[in-house]
């Protein structure tokens, strides 16, 4: 037993990824602990109920799991977008704007181009990516050729998108209930039976699309020449240039791709009914959640999958604990978890030391036994 424990620890010690994952888990546990203490302080009698609802609640029924998966899809994509940009040395704080533009493009096609027939949905999704790409391209170009800091450009573009898309919707696909029209049935994400599996009408294939995207990005970044170039530019522009990589164009491409992923999130969110694309002057928060998701995943495309699922899960838990504790409590807890995950470096150190100590002790243990025999 002890040996097994040690061996796993050694395995962990060898694999840096494993250490990363463990430190992330540690952060999560720490955050939940903090939340529990908070709940105890606020209302002791409900604390256990609350913790139970938050953690187990979202997994207690297929329906709840359905919720988790459905809401994971958009933040998985925005997270992916941010993570991808990070890996190529750019901070895409504009995901929310790209998402908004993507959503409009998708809805415009989804509402009007009914003549597309069976292709309708897929064209709408492409439109979403196109819209996002467009909105991502602007800061990319500005950075590459007028060296405007991408963060500034993106922030400005977030607001421009917000207001201009409101206008576009008002002029083209407006529904008097302060929202965009729902897409035609031919442009709605099908559920491929997931609906009945999860007995949740809101369920659709959005999550599958998101997962697919995550794998594609994983491949692009880690297996392809293009990914190699992007990462080079991300790590050292001058060196990339020396290596003959056209770093300007790579910057633009990477923003275009990041944008298109965020745009796709817009499509996945709104190519359905029952979720209105509302006219409002507040930025869609999925874009910002994406930043947290990407960071919790240490910008690894596959890690993003888990980070997004986790976010969706814990948020769901928060809503389930409603009436015992305000859902804002969960937002607080999530924030704390993110914060702890920021301390991952520290956590890793702790883990590494711990692992070392354990293994050392063990070795000594065995040696002493050896002496005895």
């Amino acid at each position, binding site marked *: 037993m002890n040996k097994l424990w040690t061996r796993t620890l050694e395995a962990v010690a060898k694999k840096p990824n494993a250490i990363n994952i463990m430190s992330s888990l540690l952060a999560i546990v720490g955050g939940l602990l903090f939340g529990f203490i908070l709940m105890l302080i606020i209302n002791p009698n*409900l604390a256990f109920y609350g913790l139970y609802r938050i953690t187990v609640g979202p997994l207690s029924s297929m329906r709840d799991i359905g919720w988790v998966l459905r809401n994971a899809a958009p933040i998985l994509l925005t997270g992916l977008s941010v993570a991808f940009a990070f890996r190529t040395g750019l901070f895409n704080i504009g995901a929310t704007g790209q998402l908004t533009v993507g959503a409009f493009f998708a809805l415009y096609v989804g509402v009007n181009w009914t003549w597309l027939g069976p292709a309708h949905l897929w064209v709408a999704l492409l439109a979403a990516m196109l819209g996002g790409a467009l909105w991502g391209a602007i800061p990319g170009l500005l950075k590459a050729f007028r060296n405007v800091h991408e963060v500034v450009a993106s922030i400005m573009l977030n607001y421009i998108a917000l207001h201009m898309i409101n206008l576009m919707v008002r002029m083209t696909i407006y529904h*008097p209930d302060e929202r965009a029209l729902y897409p035609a049935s031919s442009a709605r994400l099908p559920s491929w039976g997931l609906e009945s599996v999860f007995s949740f009408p809101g369920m659709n294939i959005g999550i599958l699309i998101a997962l697919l995207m995550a794998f594609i990005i994983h491949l692009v970044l880690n297996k392809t020449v293009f990914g190699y170039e992007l990462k080079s530019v991300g790590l050292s522009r001058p060196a990339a240039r020396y290596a003959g990589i056209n770093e300007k164009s790579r910057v633009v491409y990477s923003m275009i791709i990041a944008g298109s992923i965020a745009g796709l999130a817009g499509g996945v969110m709104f190519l359905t009914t029952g*979720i209105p694309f509302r006219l409002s002057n507040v930025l869609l928060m999925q874009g910002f959640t994406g930043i947290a998701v990407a960071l919790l995943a240490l910008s690894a495309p596959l890690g993003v999958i888990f980070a997004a699922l986790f976010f969706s899960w814990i948020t769901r838990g928060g809503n389930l604990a409603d*009436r015992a504790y305000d859902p804002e409590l969960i937002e607080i807890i999530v924030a704390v978890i993110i914060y702890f995950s920021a301390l991952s470096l520290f956590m890793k150190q702790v883990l590494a030391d711990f692992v070392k100590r354990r293994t050392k002790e063990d070795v000594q243990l065995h040696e002493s036994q050896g002496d005895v025999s």
Partner: protein
Amino acid sequence: GGVDDVEIALITDYGDIDDESFNQGTWEGIVEYAEEHDIAYAYYRPSEVSDDAYIEEIDRAVRDGAKIIVTPGFLFSQAVYTSQLRHPHVTFILLDAVPEDEDEGVFVAHNTVSIFYDEHESGFLAGYAAVYDEFTELGYMGGIAVPAVVRFGIGFIAGAYYAADELGVTIEFPDNRYTYLGTFNAGADVESEAAGWFNAGTEIIFAAAGGAGGSVMSAAEDISAWMIGVDVDQSANSDRVLTSAMKALATSVQLVLDDYYSGKFPSGQTLYLSATEDGVGLPLENSRFRNQATVEAAYNAIFDKIADGDLIVPSNYDELLDFFTDWELGNLPITRETVGG
């Protein structure tokens, strides 16, 4: 889980029950009634703005034992359509909308009543009273051009010019003093825009813009100008609120609750509450008219006219045009593009 039971439940569409508007009005009605007859009540905030979330919240209310579920706002039409069928033994009060399904269309089930308000009449009364209170430069700020907001605006125009004609005064209410802010949220830009109008001479702004109305209030305070609140009596929020173009959310909900408990529930009906039913109006007692007496007299008179159907208040742009020609109010300075709807 140790959460106590509920009989009357309110589901908010978005925002909280202190939105100085729909949720608040309805909630106050429920609280008052429930406290009086001590009935358990509670309100629920859906996790997001989506039919699924609404339906789920309704389900949860039902699980908590809710017998009556009040859903204020048009966003609920689909959710109530679905739920009224899934919970035939639960009663639904839907405000400002009818249960409607994307494909199936409208259907008000036996366990549901939907209530509309004639906002245009409320707006008319506000404009009328303002002009009678010797305001000559008026403006209108709507949140977003949803039907109710548009009707408020149209009524306001009609009322203002109608009063001006009666009094034989000329008023300033030009095209660029009628706008939709594109938001229901408070913010510096809204406050600044309103202040700009006041500074340029506008004396009073009718703000049918939810939270954004608060920014108009701030502006009015800063520049000691006036504003007119909406939906609920907002006089308490600021002493710059001249009056409020109310919809009797509280009272209407209470009426229906009363009917329900006395077994006279208007099953499957769609009620249009107008002046006739005291469904709309101004809170005279809390208004700050500069010449209270005159305004009150005029108000009561015109109110009865409307209530008795002697005066038909326009509710869309075409009717507004006709209204102007019928009553020879001169030509309408505010364009169709601006009013929209």
